[in-house]
């Protein structure tokens, strides 16, 4: 009985991991296209090119598996897995509906999630180094620098919510969430979301990849399935960061008829944030590497500290 329960939960998490990133990827194709006055993919699958990413996947799977001659074979081949697997593990801890609809309740859930997310970046650094390519090395270094800069505001913003709710468990945070936390934690939400997007190297924080400048950073030498894994990890990252932001700051499954429709609210909030991530890519130019650093240290960190101070004052004085 218990075995089947666990297996069922893991199966659902696995399905979400396989389906949601593809949906985000397809949405990116179409949303970007329409924002730029194009129509995007229209042929694969018939109806508005819905199967474009499936076709892309088939194409990637057919490609030859190439490892550069000068590369460090073992590390080069391991890197995509290190980049991808953490996002799968993180999904387990994200609650989607009230009354324990979550892969696994983790006591220190927020710590678990942020810790495992940090490991994913290691995969990109490994790939950047092992490719034996100067552009990859540059990208790997930018990746590492960016991770170190944005890990701090991410943690501080999450700490603010933890202070407000008095628990580290993600379902526990949602259990005590109130609507007026929305304005209360607004600055923290901004910091968390932006820092999360920056950790994923999404535009405008994509200096580590920067296709026009250092080709594709750590991914320059990758092709075929391994490249697809890196891409999948990027879109899975979008899903994870959006879901986390909506759990921590937007109330997750809270909404009208939350008992029945909680999962729908959660999905809607996550989808709205994913749309925002795509929008950012279309709307803004890329920041330079030093601008990215300055934004983290001189803007996001002070804002996060101010949010923590505000949270503490409100918590002590009014609650």
């Amino acid at each position, binding site marked *: 009985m218990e075995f089947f329960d666990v297996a069922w939960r893991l199966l659902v998490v696995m399905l979400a991991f396989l389906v949601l990133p593809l949906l985000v990827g397809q949405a990116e194709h179409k949303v970007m296209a329409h924002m730029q006055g194009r129509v995007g993919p229209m042929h694969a699958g018939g109806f508005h090119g819905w199967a474009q990413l499936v076709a892309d996947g088939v194409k990637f799977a057919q490609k030859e598996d190439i490892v550069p001659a*000068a*590369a*460090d074979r073992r*590390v080069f081949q391991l890197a995509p897995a290190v980049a991808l697997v953490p996002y799968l593990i993180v999904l387990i801890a994200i609650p989607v509906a009230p009354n324990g609809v979550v892969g*696994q*309740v*983790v*006591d*220190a859930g927020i*710590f*678990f999630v*942020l*810790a*495992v*997310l*940090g*490991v994913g*970046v*290691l995969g990109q*650094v*490994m790939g*950047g*180094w*092992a490719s*034996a390519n*100067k552009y990859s*090395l*540059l990208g*790997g*270094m*930018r990746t*590492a*620098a960016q*991770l*170190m*800069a944005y*890990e701090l505001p991410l*943690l501080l913003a999450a700490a603010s919510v933890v202070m407000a709710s*008095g*628990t*580290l*468990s993600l*379902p*526990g945070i949602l259990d*005590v969430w109130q609507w007026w936390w929305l304005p209360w934690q607004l600055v923290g939400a901004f910091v968390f979301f932006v820092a999360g997007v920056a950790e994923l190297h999404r535009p405008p924080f994509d200096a580590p990849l920067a296709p026009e*400048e*250092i080709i594709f950073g750590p991914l320059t030498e990758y092709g075929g399935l391994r490249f697809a894994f890196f891409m999948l990890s990027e879109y899975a990252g979008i899903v994870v960061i959006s879901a986390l932001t909506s759990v921590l700051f937007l109330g997750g499954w809270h909404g009208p008829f939350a008992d029945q429709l909680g999962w729908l609210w959660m999905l809607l909030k996550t989808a709205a944030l994913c749309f925002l991530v795509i929008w950012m890519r279309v709307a803004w130019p890329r920041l*330079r*590497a*030093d*601008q*990215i*650093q*300055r934004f983290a*240290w001189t803007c996001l960190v002070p804002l996060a500290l101010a949010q923590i101070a505000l949270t503490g004052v409100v*918590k002590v004085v009014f*609650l």
Partner: protein
Amino acid sequence: MSTFPANASGTVDGTLLLAAGRGFLSPTGVEITFVLVGLVTLGAAIMAVTSKQLVHAALWLVLALGGVAVEYLLLTAEFIAWVQVLIYVGSVVVLLLFGLMLTRAPIGPSPDADSGNRWIALAVALATAATLVTVVVDAFVSANSAWITLDTPQGDTATIGESLFRHWVLPFEALSVLLLAALVGAIVLSRRRSTASGAAPRTSTRPVAPPGPGARPRAGARTVAGGGPADAQPVADAQPGPGEQADAGGQSEQSPVNESEPESGRGKKEER
């Protein structure tokens, strides 16, 4: 006011078996896992210090630190386990890799990676291990002075927070002052170096981009990691004799020979 969830996760339930089933002849599943993970951790640690390839050593370190985190988890210290992953795997090793890449990280063995102090280091490591093992055995096993019993979960967040901020507040705060001192020291060191040798590299690391609102010449020298491309490639810092366009890393390194051409190109890009 704090409302902590009453029940911890499934791992805690499982590891209580560790305390229940004492005895070496009938090990429980958790005990077997503990030993196996310990062996993997030990192997990874040995690889980390004996590997001739610098980056491989750092990656073995990831495995060793992760193994320690799993051991914490098996000992019901869930919070410490995640902190271990967050700080050591997520930050310290990434910092280490960053430093390696910034200075030198050749693919293949580095013959000078061996230190002449290795026997002293081994002695220090063994002494540290002996001390730690003594303390742990004393804490868990000794009949008269067992500080910690595994019968009640000791490692969940609520317990750790309580003991940290009730009984151990002073050492905790003293540690944070120590960290602050280290931070201030690092800033002082980096500032002194940038003023001492500021003149020579600045001419070469100045961004070629036209002076706009965002272009500040000293940005690369100030931020620790900001000037990634500029500090990154030691090759690019050399005299621009060979004129290797490709070696000039990224956006901020251009040899004076072809300075005018990329400048116009960049200007055009920014117009768009």
